[in-house]
């Protein structure tokens, strides 16, 4: 092929190169390409002049606009905090029970609560706060450590069996595994515990076991759960008579609990969430519970 040959289809000149049958046209670069190349380079040069851009040894060109992403984000955060300050101050200062009576503030709690709960609590307690096996339902009437606003807020602050210095501490001993009770005694006390919320058991085929279990209970369990099995919010010992179960109320689950013990953990939130956030969570939960009931 000779130089000067033209492509019959386009009429463009060819370069005269050929590789394994592939030829090339010598078509000039279209004008718009130069235009866009110039435009993007110009845009870049202008941007470099205005913004932090080129390194100069230990420093860099700061840009005519004097924009710095660190000061900008600090400013944005401050602005956002200012916007929220109209109500965060009130929530910080006011009593929880007073806020509960303040409709506009409770409106904000209902707005802010779901995202706070979803990002921090839902992993264990579920997006609907109804809990799951091992994680208490937060919308029912049963509270391990008490359900008044101040107490709930305190539980969130220090956690349960957490790393906080003032954390709430509670443990159900492994009565079977640690050989405090023999297998028979465990089975009996399981029957008794179940009978507390299911009175039919006390008169049915298990009546003997329930009666035997009652004595075991009085000797080993009543110290925490109380003579009547109604629990103690001072020790975080659950009420066994109300039909609410954290680890399940079927015979196998109750047996596992008595045999192997339990020691659930809830993290302390004092160092992770602000006081305002913790108060919002408290109020949001109590509000959720009262709506659901």
């Amino acid at each position: 092929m000779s130089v000067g040959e033209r492509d019959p289809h386009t009429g463009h000149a060819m370069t005269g190169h050929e590789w394994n049958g592939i030829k090339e046209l010598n078509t000039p670069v279209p004008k718009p390409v130069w235009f866009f190349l110039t435009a993007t380079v110009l845009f870049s040069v202008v941007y470099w002049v205005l913004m932090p851009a080129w390194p100069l040894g230990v420093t860099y060109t700061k840009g005519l606009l004097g924009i710095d992403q660190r000061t900008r984000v600090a400013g944005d955060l401050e602005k956002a905090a200012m916007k929220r300050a109209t109500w965060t101050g009130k929530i910080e200062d006011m009593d929880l029970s007073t806020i509960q009576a303040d409709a506009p503030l409770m409106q904000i709690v209902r707005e802010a609560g779901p995202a706070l709960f979803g990002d921090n609590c839902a992993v264990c307690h579920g997006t609907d706060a109804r809990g799951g096996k091992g994680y208490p339902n937060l919308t029912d009437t049963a509270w391990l450590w008490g359900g008044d606003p101040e107490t709930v807020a305190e539980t969130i602050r220090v956690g349960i069996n957490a790393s906080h210095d003032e954390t709430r501490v509670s443990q159900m001993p492994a009565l079977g595994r640690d050989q405090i009770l023999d297998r028979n005694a465990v089975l009996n006390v399981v029957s008794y515990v179940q009978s507390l919320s299911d009175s039919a058991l006390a008169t049915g085929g298990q009546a003997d076991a329930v009666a035997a279990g009652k004595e075991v209970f009085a000797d080993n369990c009543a110290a925490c759960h109380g003579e009547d099995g109604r629990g103690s919010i001072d020790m975080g010992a659950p009420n066994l008579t109300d039909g609410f179960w954290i680890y399940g109320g079927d015979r196998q689950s109750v047996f596992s609990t008595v045999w192997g013990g339990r020691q659930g953990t809830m993290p302390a939130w004092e160092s992770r969430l602000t006081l305002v956030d913790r108060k919002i969570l408290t109020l949001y939960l109590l509000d959720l519970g009262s709506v659901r009931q």
Partner: protein
Amino acid sequence: MASLLTKNERQLALGISILLALVGLAMAGAGDDRAYAAHGILIMVFGVGTAFLTISGYHAPEPPEGRLAQYYDDPSKVGIVLAMGWAVFGMFIGDWVAWLLAYPEMTFDAAWSSFGRLRPVHTTGVIFGFGGNALIATSFHVMQRTSRARMPDQLSPWFVLLGYNLFCILAVSGYFMGLTQSKEYAEPEWYADIWLVIVWVTYLVLYLRTLARRQEPHIYVANWYYLAFILVVAVLHIVNNLAMPISLTQAKSYSAFAGVQDAMTQWWYGHNAVAFFLTAGFLGMLYYYLPKRAGRPIYSYRMSILGFWGITFFYMWAGSHHLHYTALPQWVQTLGMTFSVMLLVPSWLAAANALLTLNGAWHKVRDDATLRFMMVAALFYGLSTFEGSFMAIRPVNSLSHYTDWTVGHVHAGALGWVALITFGSIYAVVPWLWKRQGMYSAKLVEAHFWLALVGTLIYVFAMWNSGIIQGLMWRTYNESGTLAYSFIDSLIAMHPYYVARAIGGLFFLIGAVIGSYNIWMTVRATREDSREPIADRPVPAVARDRALQSGE
């Protein structure tokens, strides 16, 4: 296979295999952790395997002189089969991961099948397994044709191809066992990295030696791109993987970089892996197979030059756009953003050069699914380079970053551009390599094309939707100035799109399976096309002289 090597090459091959097996044995024996020892056994088995392959033809007579009058295509053939194998494997894992994101229980409570392990198996399987093998196979084919010279020896292409696959196997099996140095797209540990350096330098030397033997006055554009791919990937791989092993008998190592320097090195690597592995290499493919299949000259030599130097120069600066609004100093972000914007022009230049090359051949695009694969690939190349430059602009990035939009963008490039140009090129080259009249079934090529296109579109549209919704949900505030949605709210909103994405991926996977079947049937077909094109030969006399000097 071994009987086609010269006697010297057989000796060398045996020596390398035994050395490899011994290194594997030492690693297995001295290894302090089980995964490292397992890798030792794997390397040993691989070495023993290649030793047996060599021994099987060890005492065969010298291969006939006549071979020097032909191109050496056996490694390309094996490479294409391997590429399709990796494609099916990598895309299967990819679709599994996609379903896993929609239905988390699909991890089946096993450590090896957790998301964190499957995800790099998918990315390595498709990028390095499928893409890398396709690049090696086609580069061998293209460099010989466009240089009109046979490869200088017969051992180094096998060393490159098989050694590279050993690296891929080490990488993927390592992830399953929990081995990773936690650098995206550079997960394999130090010993696998060192092995890849040896393989890759051999690749570079092989490419340069072939080019040096060329019988053409000029070096064709495809070779510029292939060479840029090989050279820059070597540099990227070595720098980003600089690390100190905690012991020679353990897999774990610590990077030479820390903090934001580590992040910057990683994304300089990561973005240039996109640039030089997934772009330059596949542009090399495009520049050979598209004009060849279309039977048209390249539209503009000048656009080729401007595109090549623009792409190689601008890409090098763009990596920092992965770290917008982070601890990375803002001036580095500025450079990353502005160079990404300028990069759009040469990228579109390359895409336009490819599409304009089809002038006069559009009727072929309509009728020929193979050429249509390449045409649509060029369109997706244009689309995803535009999207990439757009997403590199800081305010846009503040919405798109960390969302599925990024995932959609990557797959517009990976499925729409990289995989489609590869399938198109493979459908073009398979009949040439195996000397067949055409593919086993043109209808299956057509079916593959539509499955791949529909799959890609479903995938990309699903991720655009989910990414933008995600980004908007994360920045939506209530009247009172608090976040309107929790993270899990956005996750629940993503569910339908995740299902759609997995369905799109399934279409693409089925297409790849059909393609593999079609290729396999073409390879097995017995109807040889005896009319070998006369042009498909190196310059014989010269090739013989040179080959005698170098390999024997």
